[in-house]
């Protein structure tokens, strides 16, 4: 670990230059709450660290015409405290407030939370339910955007290639009529790692669901959108019958494992409970 090189680019062009020169050798660091721990236990062995934690272009929350954009290195504490996020994306604010503890939230960034691609990444389910788009720039300076559900490919595997930089997350402004709901289940009230979580957005028309966006965390190899469940619910009223009818489908959508935080069967029944509760909350 002793021969690691460290660079702190001052602007996007300097960053791009560094990524071009170092390509696959370069590992980006922002808050470092995952990476420093992973370096210490030998899980990650970077040769070159590129510190993007203070790049102004990658920081901050902006309201645009149709989107709320969040710079990739915006801290979780900033997101949790942001009136803009609180107003437009309350389910994301709720998840940010429950990530780690106040000390880690001051360092951890939303981009890091996504790029680390843990199935239990706290900000992932709300961003999936909000249909966020992840903006990425490659070493040639070409930008692309990927829907959040395409960003997560598999366990700890994302759409990011070597040398790519995640620049921002764009959340389409939810329709005023859409209501969100979010629950993170942990083993304690604070500083918990997620055992199961659900985030959903529901739009009602008359007596039926017009549009549903449903996402789960910690119950599959990656954070997931539950498309079949959404499709099943749309066009129907949310009532006891629907909750019991969609139960088997929910169980098909998730594929939890058992680990130190909960068994597979616990995760299955807990997910059903929090899903039902959140669906009802967003419905009334």
């Amino acid at each position, binding site marked *: 670990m002793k021969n690691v090189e460290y660079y702190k680019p001052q602007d996007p062009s300097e960053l791009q230059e560094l990524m071009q020169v170092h390509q696959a050798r370069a590992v980006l660091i922002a808050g470092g709450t995952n990476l*420093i721990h992973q370096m210490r236990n030998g899980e990650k062995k970077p040769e070159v660290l590129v510190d993007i934690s203070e790049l102004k272009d990658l920081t901050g929350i902006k309201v645009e015409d149709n989107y709320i954009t969040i710079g990739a290195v915006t801290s979780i504490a900033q997101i949790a405290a942001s009136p803009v996020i609180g107003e437009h994306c309350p389910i994301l604010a709720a998840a940010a407030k429950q990530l780690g503890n106040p000390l880690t939230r*001051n360092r951890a960034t939303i981009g890091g939370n996504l790029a680390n691609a843990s199935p239990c990444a706290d900000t992932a389910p709300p961003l999936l339910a909000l249909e966020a788009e992840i903006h990425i720039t490659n070493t040639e300076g070409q930008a692309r955007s990927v829907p959040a559900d395409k960003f997560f490919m598999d366990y700890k595997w994302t759409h990011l290639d070597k040398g790519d930089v995640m620049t921002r997350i764009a959340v389409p402004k939810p329709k005023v009529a859409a209501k969100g709901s979010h629950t993170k289940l942990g083993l304690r009230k604070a*500083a918990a790692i997620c055992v199961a979580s659900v985030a959903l957005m529901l739009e009602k028309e008359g007596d039926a669901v017009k549009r549903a966006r449903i996402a789960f965390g910690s119950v599959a190899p990656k954070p997931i959108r539950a498309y079949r469940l959404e499709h099943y619910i749309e066009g129907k009223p949310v009532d006891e019958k629907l909750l019991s009818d969609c139960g088997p489908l929910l169980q098909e959508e998730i594929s939890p494992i058992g680990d130190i935080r909960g068994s597979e069967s616990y995760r299955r029944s807990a997910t059903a409970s929090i899903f039902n509760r959140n669906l009802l909350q967003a419905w009334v």
Partner: protein
Amino acid sequence: MNTYNIEIKVNGEWRETEVTATDTLLEVLRSNLDAVEVKNGCEQGDCGACTVILGGKPVNSCLVLAVQANGKEVTTVKGIGTQESPHHLQTAFVEHGAIQCGYCTPGLIVSAKALLDENPDPTREEIREGICGNLCRCTGYTKIVEAIEDAASKK
């Protein structure tokens, strides 16, 4: 070996030192800058024993690279009060017996200071939430919460 010269303002005094890219702020504070009041507990961001205020925000110094703190201000428990003139939080911890083995205390005082700076009149629940990144295996937290509540009332 790649090394980097950095400057950190520790408790009001600029200090220069040489670090590698992967040295943590915790390691450098303790080994290079004699700030042994910053305790090393878990080194993975779980326990909060190494809490310092960096650029105005409380953080785990074990999860910050020293190079990332270059040019920044760091406040440790020693920067909050001294033995001769303790901060009212420190006095309250002593008066309430909110210290047993004492290992978590430097981190807890720093977290409590940051909490009261942002929220001078916190509820009990807000105090508990504010210090939830700092583990204490002795007290059961009741005395710590009471000490912070008392310090807030005396501010």
